């Protein structure tokens, strides 16, 4: 049904929807993040939850300390190689449907510390990331816009067929392999199934 007709009917007091829309509306408006902050971006995330840029207005009512009760993990800050297995373990402990926002340059790609000996060049090497927010650190409004992007992404997920969410897909990967801290580096250096490398640019 087109938008115009819906709005007209809405003015008359008739509310039309599909199950898919209702389902996704419920899911996207109550995404509860996990209390997970690593470095400076965590301060910006905290600022986003405070009075001025209120994240609770978007449904992220409570930041749950336990991964079992959380829907969203906002990776804010540099992921060191020492911490990376723990991040993947926490992600594995989250129940589906779960989403990941990589906030800030360090979480996306290692950022300004990319050449560090202990810096993981982006958490998307081991877990699937839904939204990336560039910035160092990104403004609280940028995190809110990313949250809205995530909500739009949830809204557009069909319930059947190709792009359905993982919790409705029996063959989807539920547990992601935790990297082992080897003698010289994390083994493996990346999860080939999760990190779809493009054709090499340079």
């Amino acid at each position, binding site marked *: 049904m087109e938008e115009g007709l819906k709005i007209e009917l809405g003015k008359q007091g008739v509310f039309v929807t599909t199950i898919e829309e209702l389902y996704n509306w419920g899911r996207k408006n109550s995404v509860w993040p996990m209390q997970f902050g690593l470095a400076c971006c965590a301060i910006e995330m905290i600022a986003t939850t405070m009075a001025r*840029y209120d994240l609770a207005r978007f449904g992220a009512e409570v930041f749950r300390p336990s991964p079992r009760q959380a829907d969203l993990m906002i990776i804010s800050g540099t992921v060191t190689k020492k911490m990376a297995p723990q991040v993947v373990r926490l992600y594995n402990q989250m129940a589906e449907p779960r989403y990941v926002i990589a906030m800030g340059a360090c979480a996306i790609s290692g950022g300004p510390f*990319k050449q560090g000996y202990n810096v993981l060049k982006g958490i998307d090497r081991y877990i699937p990331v839904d939204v*990336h927010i560039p910035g160092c650190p990104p403004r609280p409004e*940028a995190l809110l816009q990313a949250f809205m992007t995530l909500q739009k992404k949830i809204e557009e997920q069909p319930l059947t067929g190709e792009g359905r969410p993982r919790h409705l897909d029996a063959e989807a990967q539920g547990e992601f392999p935790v990297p082992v801290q080897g003698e010289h580096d994390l083994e493996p250096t990346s999860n080939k199934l999760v990190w779809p490398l493009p054709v090499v640019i340079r």
Partner: protein
Amino acid sequence: MLGEGILKGLAETARNAVGSFVSKDRLTTVEYPEERLPLPEASRNFPFLVYDGTDWEKGLRCVACQICEKECPPKCIYIDKSKDKKPDAFGRPQIYPAKFDIDISVCMSCQICVEVCPFEAIKMDTQYELSTDDRFGGLLLDRKELAKSNEYYHQIHPTEASEVDAKLAAEKVKADAKAKAAAGAAAAKAAAAAAAPKPAEAAAKPVVLADAPAAKPQGEGD
């Protein structure tokens, strides 16, 4: 009194909590995206390339000197120089960047590239709504996405842009004056060179005339 500090803090919190329902200035929430906090003029997020005029390719100020590439601390800029040249704002043929990529997944907004650019070609943008789910394509900005007009620069940083325009205009005036002086000197030199052979020819003639009578008696004597 014991606990006075805590009570003062609690009183402040209560004043804020109750007051936010009553008065507008106790409610500090800025309801994004409907309301936005006005950013200060010097705020910065990621760089962009300035172009003068309407055609972004022709008016791009960048001459691919690669100074920003070398000075960038996390090395997130990649520049490929062009093989040919195109005329710049002063009319002189300059090389331009064939490729200018900035990886904003690494950029830390330090503004060093802006500080070192000698041509005022790269400036800081204030756009922060760049979140994407496309890790590889969406976070590597190329030349076309980076090029924004001088009018846009005036919109986001008016004072800075006017200063830069004044500086560039002054430089253009100096360059024009220099070119004029150089042209004048070249013209004067050409005129001097044209006048010089004439006195040389006049000096050569009397020599020939002096020789001729001396040669004649020899010829006659033969």
